[in-house]
C-alpha cells in the first residue's frame, strides 16, 4: 500500500463516551468484521472488559476503506481506554498515529479526561477530528457541546461531526474526515527500518509478540531483527496485521501498524518504547520512545499459597509485556511471606492487575492495603522512600514524614459545588480557583494529599454529583505531614501487611472504623478473633469476630452422599483470596477494608 493512502488514528475520549461503540460502526462500514463475528464493543475482547463494560487495553485494528474520492485507504485504528488509570495506554497509542478522533458525549459534555487526553494528543502533534457522540440521547445537548468543542480546538463549528455511534448516524462521515483531515504517515520508505514497539503480549508458542508502528523502511519476514535499546538480535517467527485477530502477512510497509512475533522467550528482552531495526544494515538513531510511568499507588501482591511465588513472578513478568504501566519488585512480609511490591496508576488499575494475574495465570492472590509513596527523613538525616507502611522505621528514628500532594481539577455542573467542597475539605484539600467552562459547568481546583485521593474519592465524587463530576490530577510535590503508623493486630498478633499510614487527626476515627469493618469482612471461624488497632503498641480500638459455633450438615444418608459431598467441595473451592495466618483465615476484603469505610 502506498503510504499516501495510509491513515493511522486513534479514538480518544473520557470514559464511556462511546469510543468502542464508534469503533464497532467503523469496523462494520469497512467490512472488517463479518456480521457473524460482530458483537457490541467488539474490540473489548478481554473477558474482564466485557464483564465490566469498560476498555482496559488499547487495541489496534487494520481496516480497508473505499473513500468517496474513489480511492482505497488503509486505516489503522487504535481504540483506547478512557479510564484515567489507563492513560499510559493512550499516550503510547498516540505515538503510533497521526490523528485522533476525539469523542465527546453529547449529554455529558467535556469532562476531565476529554481534556487530559486531548492535551496528550496535541503534545504528540496529532490532528484532531472532533466528534460529538450519542446525539440520539434525550438529554443530548449536541449544539452546545459542539460549540464548546469548537472553542476548545479553535476550529469551526463545521469541523465537529454529530454522531450516534449506537444508531450509526454519521459514522461514515467519521471515516471520510479521517481520510481527509489526518495526514498520511511521514516516514521514509527507503531508509533503514525503524519500528516503534508500542505494546506487546506473551504468546506461549510465538514468544513475545511486539505491536509496532513502522516509522521508516519496511519489515520483511526472513530477515533478522535487532532491538536497539536492549541490544538483542532475533529472527521473527511471524509478521502481520490486526484484523483484529493476528493475521499473518509476512510484511509491514512504511507507516503501517501491525505485529511482529519476535520468537523471544525471555520477557526482559523486549520493551515497549524500544525501536526495532534490521540486524544487518541497521538504523543509527533510536525513536524517541516513551516516558516511563510513575506509579501512584503501591500494594503488595502475594500468592495465598507460598509455593506459587515463582509462578507469580513469571506471571508478573509476562503481564508487564501487556501492561507497560505495571512496576514491581520482590518484597517480603512477616505475615504474607514472599511476594511483590507493585506500583499502579490507581486503584482500578490495581484491581484489574490482580484479576488478570489470577485469571490469565491461574493464581490465587492477596493484595495488601494500597499505600502511596512517602518520603521519610530519619533522625540521621537520611531520606527514605517508603511505599509500604510495614517499612516505616520506628517512631524514634523518624524526623519527618513527607507525603505526595496532587493538584486536582474537578469538572462539574455548578449545582454540585456544595457537596464537592464538603467532600474535598473533609479530605484535607486546599481550595483553589474556580474556572467556568460555560455558564453551567465549572472546574474546581484543589490541592490535596494523594493518600486522601486514592481512597475511593472518584466514586464518592460520582455519587455526590449523580455521576456528573469527573476529575483529573497531576503531581504537585512532597509536603511534610503529621502522619502515624496504625498497626492492626489480628488474634493479638500484629499483621504487617495490614498496617497503614494515617494522619494524626484522623487516627482514632480511622482505627475504630477499620476494626469494625474488618469484623464484618473476616468470616467467623472456630475461635473468636480479636481485631485491634494500635499506635506504637497502644491499643486504640478493638472489635471481635465471634466464634463460629455450628457448621455441619445435619442430615446425611445414602441418597445425600453425592449432593452433600459436592456442596462441601464447592464451599472448599470457593475459598478464594483467603490467607491462613496460624489459626486465623483473613480474606482479601480485610486488606481492602480501609477503602470501604464510611465517612
Amino acid at each position, binding site marked *: 500500500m502506498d503510504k499516501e493512502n495510509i491513515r493511522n488514528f486513534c479514538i480518544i475520549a473520557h470514559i464511556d463516551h462511546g469510543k468502542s461503540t464508534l469503533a464497532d460502526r467503523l469496523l462494520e462500514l469497512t467490512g472488517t468484521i463479518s456480521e457473524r463475528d460482530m458483537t457490541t464493543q467488539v474490540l473489548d475482547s478481554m473477558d474482564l472488559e466485557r464483564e465490566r463494560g469498560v476498555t482496559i487495553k488499547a487495541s489496534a485494528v487494520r481496516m480497508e476503506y473505499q473513500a468517496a474520492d474513489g480511492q482505497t485507504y488503509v486505516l489503522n485504528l487504535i481504540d483506547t481506554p478512557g479510564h484515567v488509570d489507563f492513560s499510559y495506554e493512550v499516550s503510547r497509542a498516540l505515538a503510533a498515529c497521526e490523528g485522533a478522533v476525539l469523542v465527546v458525549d453529547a449529554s455529558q459534555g467535556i469532562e476531565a479526561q476529554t481534556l487530559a487526553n486531548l492535551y496528550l494528543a496535541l503534545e504528540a502533534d496529532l490532528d484532531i477530528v472532533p466528534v460529538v457522540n450519542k446525539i440520539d440521547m434525550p438529554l443530548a445537548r449536541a449544539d452546545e457541546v459542539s460549540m464548546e468543542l469548537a472553542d476548545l480546538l479553535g476550529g469551526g463549528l463545521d469541523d465537529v461531526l454529530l454522531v450516534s455511534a449506537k444508531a450509526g448516524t454519521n459514522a461514515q462521515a467519521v471515516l471520510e474526515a479521517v481520510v481527509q483531515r489526518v495526514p498520511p504517515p511521514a516516514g521514509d520508505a527507503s531508509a533503514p527500518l525503524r519500528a516503534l514497539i508500542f505494546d506487546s503480549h506473551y504468546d506461549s508458542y510465538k514468544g513475545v509478540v511486539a505491536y509496532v508502528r513502522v516509522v521508516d523502511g519496511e519489515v520483511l519476514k526472513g530477515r533478522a531483527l535487532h532491538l536497539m535499546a536492549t541490544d538483542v538480535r532475533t529472527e521473527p517467527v511471524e509478521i502481520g496485521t490486526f484484523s483484529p485477530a493476528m493475521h499473518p502477512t509476512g510484511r509491514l510497509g512504511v507507516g503501517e501498524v501491525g505485529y511482529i512475533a519476535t520468537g523471544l522467550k525471555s520477557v526482559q528482552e523486549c520493551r515497549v518504547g524500544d525501536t526495532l531495526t534490521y540486524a544487518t544494515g541497521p538504523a543509527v538513531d533510536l525513536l524517541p520512545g516513551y516516558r516511563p510511568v510513575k506509579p501512584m499507588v503501591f500494594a503488595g501482591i502475594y500468592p495465598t*499459597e507460598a*509455593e506459587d511465588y515463582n509462578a507469580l513472578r513469571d506471571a508478573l513478568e509476562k503481564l508487564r509485556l501487556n501492561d507497560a504501566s505495571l512496576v514491581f519488585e520482590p518484597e517480603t512480609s512477616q505475615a504474607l511471606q514472599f511476594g511483590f511490591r507493585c506500583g499502579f496508576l490507581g486503584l482500578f488499575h490495581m484491581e484489574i492487575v490482580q484479576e488478570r494475574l489470577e485469571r490469565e495465570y491461574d493464581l490465587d492472590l492477596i493484595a495488601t492495603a494500597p499505600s502511596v509513596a512517602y518520603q521519610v527523613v530519619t533522625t540521621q538525616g537520611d531520606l527514605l522512600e517508603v511505599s509500604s507502611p510495614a517499612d516505616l522505621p520506628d517512631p524514634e528514628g523518624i524526623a519527618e514524614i513527607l507525603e505526595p500532594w496532587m493538584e486536582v481539577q474537578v469538572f462539574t455542573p455548578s449545582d454540585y459545588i456544595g457537596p464537592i467542597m464538603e467532600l474535598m475539605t473533609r479530605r484535607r484539600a486546599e481550595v483553589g480557583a474556580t474556572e467556568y467552562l460555560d455558564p453551567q459547568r465549572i472546574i474546581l481546583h484543589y490541592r490535596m494529599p494523594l493518600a486522601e485521593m486514592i481512597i475511593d474519592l472518584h466514586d464518592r465524587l460520582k455519587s455526590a454529583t449523580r455521576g456528573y463530576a469527573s476529575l483529573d490530577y497531576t503531581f504537585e510535590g512532597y509536603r511534610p505531614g503529621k502522619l502515624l503508623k496504625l498497626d492492626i493486630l489480628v488474634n493479638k498478633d500484629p499483621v504487617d501487611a495490614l498496617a497503614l499510614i494515617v494522619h494524626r487527626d484522623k487516627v482514632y476515627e480511622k482505627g475504630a472504623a477499620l476494626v469494625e469493618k474488618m469484623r464484618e469482612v473476616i468470616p467467623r471461624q*472456630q475461635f473468636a478473633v480479636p481485631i485491634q488497632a494500635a499506635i506504637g503498641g497502644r491499643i486504640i480500638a478493638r472489635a471481635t469476630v*465471634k466464634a*463460629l*459455633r*455450628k*457448621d*455441619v*450438615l*445435619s*442430615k*446425611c*444418608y*445414602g*441418597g445425600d*452422599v*453425592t449432593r*452433600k*459431598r459436592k456442596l*462441601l*467441595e464447592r*464451599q*472448599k*473451592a470457593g475459598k478464594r483470596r483467603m490467607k491462613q495466618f496460624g*489459626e486465623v483465615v483473613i480474606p482479601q476484603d480485610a486488606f481492602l477494608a480501609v477503602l470501604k469505610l464510611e465517612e
Partner: protein
Amino acid sequence: MQLTQHDRFGSARPLVAPNHPTAVYVHVPFCRARCAYCDFATTAGLEHLIPAYVAAVCREIEAAGARWGRLRVPTLYIGGGTPSLVPPADLEQLLDALRAAFRLADDAEVTLEANPGTLAPPYLAHLRDLGVNRLSLGVQSAHAGELQMLGRIHTWAQAVEAVSAACAAGFDNLSLDLIYGLPRQALQRWEETLRAALALAPQHLSLYALTVETGTPLAGRIARGTLPPPDDDLAADMVELAEALLAEAGYFHYEISNWARSDQRLADRGWQIPPDILSETVSPFVCRHNLVYWRNAPYLGFGAGAASWFGGERWVNVDHPQTYIDRIATGASPVAETEHIPRPLEMGETMMMGLRLAEGVSDARFRARFGASLEAVCAKALGQLSRRGLLSWDGRAARLTAQGRLLGNQVFAHFLPPLDR
C-alpha cells in the same frame, strides 16, 4: 474378583460377590401435602399413582434379584415421602417381591417411615403382619405454631396417639424425628418439644437442624422478610441442650443427629464409644440400616429418586414417579445418573460419612478396606484437625470432638477434593 456384565437395563456394572450383605432402600415419593421446608424427592397430589408405582418398583426389584442372585439383606428401609400412604395390599406386594428377590434375614431390621397424621390402628396391625419391626415417625415439634409454620399435616396430639397406637400394635422400636433451629424458635420452646418427646420414651430420636433449602416456600418467606432466618448460634445452643437432656434420659448419641435409648447409663460416657457400635450392645436401637450409609457399605435403592452404592458405583434413579413408571413400563433403565467413585474419593466419602458416627473411622476397618492406614492416607488432615481440637486421633480411630460435631463441615472438607496440596 469383580466381573462386569451387562444387565437388562444395558449398563455395565461390576458384580459384587452374592454373599455380600447389602442393605435395601425403597423410596415412596408421595405425600399428602408438601411441607414448607421440604426439598426431598417427593410429590403431593399424585397418590393415585401409588398402585402403578408399587408395581413398577416390584419389577425393578425382580430385575435386581435376577441380576445379582438373591443377595443377603440384613436391613430394609422404606422411606419417603410418606410410605404410610401405601395401602396394605400394595405394601404386601412390595414385601413379597423383596423376599422373592433377596434373602431377607429373619432378624432383618425393617423400617417404615410414617407421618403421624396417617397412622390408624388397623394399618399398624397390617404393618406388623408384613414384618415391619421399626417405625420412624416425623413428629417434628410439640408446638402447634411450629407445626403450622412447617406446613405439617398433623398435630402433636396425633403424634402422641400414633405412638401409643404403635406400642399397642406391638411395635417396640420407634424412632421420632424432631426439628430445631426454626425461625423465631426460642431455646425454651425447643426444650419443651424435647421433653414432650422424651415423655413418650421412644427407642430412638433423630434431631435435625432446619436447613432452609432454596426454592422452598419457607425460603421464600425468609427472603421476603416475613420470617427471620434461623439463628445458627442459637441452633448450637439447642444441640448442646439436647445432648445434655438426652444423655440424662439414657440416650446414646451415636451419630451427629441420632440418639438411641440405652439401658446402660451413658451420661458420663458421652461420645466416647467402643470401636464398633454394634459389637458391644451399647443399645439395641441403633439404626442398623442407616449405619450402613455411615459406614459407606453397599446398598441398593429402588423406586424414584432412590440411590444405590454398589460395586464402586453410585447411581440414582429418576425423581418423578411418572417418569419412573414409564421407564420401567418400557423396559428402559430408571437410572438417571451413574457416578463411578474412584478409590481416593471413596476414601474421602468414607471419612465424611464415618466421622459422623460416635465410633468414628477405625484404622483397622479402613486398612482392611483400602489396604492403607489412615495415617498413610491423611496424616496431614488428622494432624491439623487434632491440633485445632476438632478431631481426636489415638492411632486406632479418628473421631469428632464435641466441637468437631458442631463444626463437622470444616472437618469433612479436609478429606474431600480439592485435596490440600
